[in-house]
């Protein structure tokens, strides 16, 4: 009951909702880059939202199934095919034993997520199955997938109920310039008014230095009052760090837990789905919002995921309670 990696693609790793609770010990959170896509994929196959998935970067893997299971692919469209036939993203479907899943071409976004009904047989480390490659823990032996790897299914379910209802319109769409909502802070007071104005009015372009740690951007220099160094403090997902050179870096899943550069603003949770899909050449504008609006957007997104769960219905028949004699 497993998949065999025939080709790992550019960078494929096991990720889940992240390693929560160990940042105070210097352990990065890791986890998926696009949490929304992971949650949708898991709901479509009937899993818990934060179940471990495969995160595939730009060029997806080639996987052979030796047992049947239901899967769903979400996030960026990397051109998935099953035995050479194109398959839809954002839809649950059955893969039979012996079939091969491949990815042919990047059409939108940067990262695709494959969820497997019943999850992957990967031991949790510090409460998470996420691969934290720098510290070599989690996932499959703490590393990215390689050719010949075999990953087991934990509780495969090729008979997921209501399969036809388990599809929605793809959510990752290309855009000329993405508008990303931010909350100013924690160190916005270390920038000049002109610097803040630049940050909120210019368009920034993603450089080729973008990975799971962070996304370096090119564009107009954001002016500090007295340089970009601070006494190190904590870094949240989506923090926009601006070192003295004045170019922003969006901090992502594998970011260090602490850092010594000024952070001008933080991307709001509802827009992680945008920043988790950025790749070189993409253009971004930062739009200031309020904490109330950001938290409203987050709760709205959660409600939408609950509605999707309701719409797809149960994945398994409920076990009947034995009648009393």
């Amino acid at each position: 009951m497993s998949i065999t990696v025939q080709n790992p693609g550019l960078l494929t790793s096991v990720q889940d909702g992240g390693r929560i609770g160990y940042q105070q010990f210097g352990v990065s959170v890791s986890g998926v880059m696009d949490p929304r896509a992971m949650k949708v994929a898991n709901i479509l196959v009937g899993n818990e939202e934060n179940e471990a998935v495969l995160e595939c970067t730009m060029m997806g893997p080639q996987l052979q199934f030796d047992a049947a299971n239901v899967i769903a692919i979400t996030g960026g469209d990397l051109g998935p095919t099953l035995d050479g036939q194109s398959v839809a993203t954002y839809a649950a479907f059955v893969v039979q034993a012996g079939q091969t899943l491949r990815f042919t071409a990047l059409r939108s976004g940067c990262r695709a997520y494959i969820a497997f009904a019943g999850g992957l047989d990967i031991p949790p480390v510090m409460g998470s199955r996420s691969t934290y490659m720098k510290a070599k823990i989690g996932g499959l032996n703490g590393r990215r997938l390689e050719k010949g790897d075999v990953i087991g299914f934990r509780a495969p379910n090729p008979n997921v109920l209501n399969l036809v209802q388990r599809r929605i319109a793809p959510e990752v769409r290309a855009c000329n310039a993405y508008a990303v909502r931010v909350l100013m802070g924690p160190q916005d007071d270390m920038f000049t008014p002109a610097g803040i104005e630049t940050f909120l009015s210019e368009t920034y372009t993603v450089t080729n230095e973008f990975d799971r740690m962070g996304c370096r951007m090119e564009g107009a220099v954001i002016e500090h009052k007295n340089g970009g160094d601070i006494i190190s403090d904590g870094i949240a997902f989506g923090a926009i760090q601006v070192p003295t050179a004045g170019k922003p870096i969006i901090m992502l899943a594998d970011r260090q837990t602490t850092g010594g550069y000024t952070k001008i603003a933080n991307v709001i949770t509802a827009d992680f789905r945008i920043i988790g899909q950025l790749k070189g050449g993409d253009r971004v504008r930062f739009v200031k919002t309020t904490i109330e609006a950001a938290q409203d957007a987050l709760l709205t997104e959660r409600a939408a995921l609950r509605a999707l769960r309701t719409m797809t219905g149960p994945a398994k028949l409920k076990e009947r309670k034995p009648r009393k004699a």
Partner: protein
Amino acid sequence: MPNVRFLLTGDTSLSAEFGNEISETINAQIRAFTIALDHSKIPGIVELVPTYRACMIHYDPGVISYRALTRRLESLLGSLDSIEIPPSDVLEVPVLYGGEEMGPDLAFVAEHAGLSEQEVIDIHTSTEYLIYMLGFTPGFTYLGGMSDKLETPRLKQPRVKIPAGSVGIAGKQTGVYPIDSPGGWQLIGRTPVKMYDPNRETPILPKAGQYIKFRAIDRAEYDAIAAQAENNEYVCRTYPRGEATT
């Protein structure tokens, strides 16, 4: 009540900033605050990340909004003086100093300081070093309090691989490498204790706000502790700060 600023760090966390300098006083306030926060049972708090001068508080806005949380935190700060804060623990870390294998730079550190190797060891083991915070890699401690006498510049040419457990000096800092990594610290010794083991019930031994005290050991004790550590049977001695150390 310390003068604390609440800073936005996105919509699921905030930073409670206690000052803008590296000082034992500020760090002690942060420690008191995190202890009080742990006891406060404020709903929705997910994770605390104390650093030099701030404490990052991760929370679930589905349980508590930003406004509600900051009101609760303000009232907690107001009552901080009335909460009894126990003394910090001292974590005793055994170290085999010197020798080509364990502490190849001890001779250089001694020569640079104009001291004997034994004097360097005596000074290095006489201090309780405050763990200001952890970061950089799992289990890496930012320690304060090293004697100025031991200040030594980094290696001109960093080593490609430094074994986990190595104890080093870089400038005014001292510390332990928790995992194998490249680095330019002057290596003066090594501990057989695993500061970090992802598969242990307590994966990381040191905690922000604690102190570390190094204890010099000989080769026989090093080997004995290493064997116990391998079987997950060695427990580092800890004791409340201020109590007798013998």
